[in-house]
């Protein structure tokens, strides 16, 4: 018995000392699951260069906000920007890290990706339940050459709370007064019509398995799974396709302002070629955690400088250079000298 105990103590001591020898600086983050793939890809490359390891828990934006508010992590990640007032209340600062797009996806036999044209009025009508059939006059007017069937539209939305829903409903609120009055915007809303799928995969699965349906999903997910995404008319009056160029155009014309702590939903960006439904994912820092903020800023500074190719590869939209410079200045202004 005593011998067993002795061996156990030795093994434990050995393990502890090994642990000590390999102790690396870690950066703890939590929040947005949308941002998880790119943060881990950046962190993998960053660890090789700087030796800092990222421990990121993709527990959802709500969880990310809660964790940084309670100061249990070095940074929180949220798909929704907090208002300057909310930030002040919890003594936080925030900046965008990367941008993602949301696209409508449809399943109508014979319709190919990037073929059908929709605009905010038809999207709003469909999601309010006012437009019930695919051959509705409003949809026909946008697609004069298409042979649209007289089939009932099945509307699919997210059943779980999600940043994708927040960006999508924000787009509807901005362009459609009826939506603003009846539903509003948020991570989950009281949907007037439709069925709910859990997660991106739930929405994609229902749209793919149900004929004559429409849904919305992250662009990265829609492209990787060959979903039939549509074109959209942007505020400049032009029909644009969902692709990296139009997302970048949206990012360039979005007016992120450091004075508002970058609090901006970048839907309906002004640019001529801008895709109308896109949004940043944000990083939240606690003002009082100086050392942690420097660690975090170092990581994102490196990622901003070296991570654009990786972001594009994973179908995210990197921030435009001017915005990155604004963020670096914002860090300095908040006393983070990375």
């Amino acid at each position, binding site marked *: 018995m005593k011998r067993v105990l002795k061996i156990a103590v030795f093994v434990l001591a050995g393990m502890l000392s090994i642990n000590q020898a390999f102790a690396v600086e870690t950066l703890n983050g939590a929040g947005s699951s949308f941002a998880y793939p790119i943060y881990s890809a950046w962190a993998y490359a960053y660890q090789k260069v700087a030796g800092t390891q990222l421990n990121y828990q993709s527990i959802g934006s709500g969880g990310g906000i809660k964790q940084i508010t309670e100061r249990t992590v070095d940074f929180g990640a949220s798909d929704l920007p907090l208002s300057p007032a909310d930030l002040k209340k919890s003594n936080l600062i925030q900046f965008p890290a990367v941008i993602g797009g949301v696209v409508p996806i449809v399943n109508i036999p014979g319709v190919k990706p990037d073929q059908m044209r929709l605009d905010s009025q038809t999207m709003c009508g469909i999601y309010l339940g006012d437009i019930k059939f695919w051959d509705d006059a409003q949809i026909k007017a946008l697609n004069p050459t298409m042979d649209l069937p007289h089939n009932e539209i099945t509307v699919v939305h997210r059943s*779980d709370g999600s940043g994708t829903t927040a960006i999508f409903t924000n787009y509807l609120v901005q362009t459609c007064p009826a939506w603003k009055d009846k539903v509003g915007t948020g991570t989950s809303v009281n949907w007037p019509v439709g069925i709910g799928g859990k997660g991106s995969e739930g929405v994609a699965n229902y749209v793919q398995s149900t004929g004559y349906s429409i849904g919305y999903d992250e662009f990265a997910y829609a492209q990787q799974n060959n979903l039939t995404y549509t074109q959209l008319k942007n505020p400049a009056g032009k029909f644009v396709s969902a692709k990296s160029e139009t997302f970048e155009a949206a990012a360039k014309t979005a007016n992120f302002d450091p004075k508002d702590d970058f609090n901006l939903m970048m839907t309906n960006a002004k640019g001529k070629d801008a895709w109308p439904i896109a949004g940043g994912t944000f990083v939240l820092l606690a003002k009082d955690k100086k050392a942690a903020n420097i660690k975090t800023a170092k990581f994102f500074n490196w990622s901003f400088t070296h991570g654009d190719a990786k972001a594009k590869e994973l179908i995210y939209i990197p921030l435009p250079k001017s915005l990155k410079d604004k963020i670096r200045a914002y860090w300095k202004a908040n006393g983070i000298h990375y």
Partner: protein
Amino acid sequence: MDNSRKHNYFDLLFASVTAVASFTVIIFIIGIVAVLFNESSLAIGRFGVVNFLTSTVWDPVKGIFGAATTIYGTVVTTVFALLFSIPTAIGIAIFVTEIAPNFLKTPIGVAIELLAAIPSIIYGMWGLFTLAPIMSRYVEPALKASIGKLPYLGFLFQGNPMGIDLLTASSILAIMIIPFTASIARDSFNLTPSVVKESAYAIGATRWEVVKNVVLPYSKLGIFGGAALSLGRALGETMAVAFVLGNNHRIATSLLDAASTITVSLANEFTEADTDLYLSSLYYLALILFVMSFVILAVSKYFLLKAERKYSR
């Protein structure tokens, strides 16, 4: 003398260790209730008890929350799951104990136990990718065309068969709880004295008569206990139904409508609940589920004890 003191000392130690182990359970339960109550106090203060229980509004944007829709969904899915599973489970138990030849008994028994060992998330994924399409393409249109046309029962099968609805969710729940009911029913069937069964056969009773008049009365209690256990499981089941119920906060009258249960709402909305009141309302739902499960299990336990007393006399 010395030896006995040592003996007493160990006995005391042993008793206190086991006592501590048992009391941790009670401490955990009290702790969970306290946390649920504390976290939901904001929502309790805002919406009250009766108002929250009866309100059918669930609007995170406007910050108005009510639990009636999710309580309704929880009760409906559980009731239908029990309706589907209990007859099936009793059938399985009768077959395994009374009818199946010996070489079939073990494989079927093992299969039932394996069914109980499948993690619920796997039922959920299977439900989303396999069962829901089958339901929406074949089963539900057929039900709608047949039972949906009948008077009185027809309202249960109205609407667009989408596969994400109360029927699919209840079916998955039923499959999940069959093993519990079935294995307990089987064990209690096996307890029927063979002498009684053989006597019944000897006086010319058929298999059906033996099961109906001898085995079932003997094992009523076991079936009831198994059903109570399944009820508890069905009430709290989360991942198996989170994918196939649509999390729709409405009172659905048709089994082909999407709905929500308390656990489905929690699984779907907890991670992205971005306001304090929203989060607090979700905790409030959890508290309600806790109380519901407690009351229902206490009631079934009470009836079980009552029945036990009656039969043991």
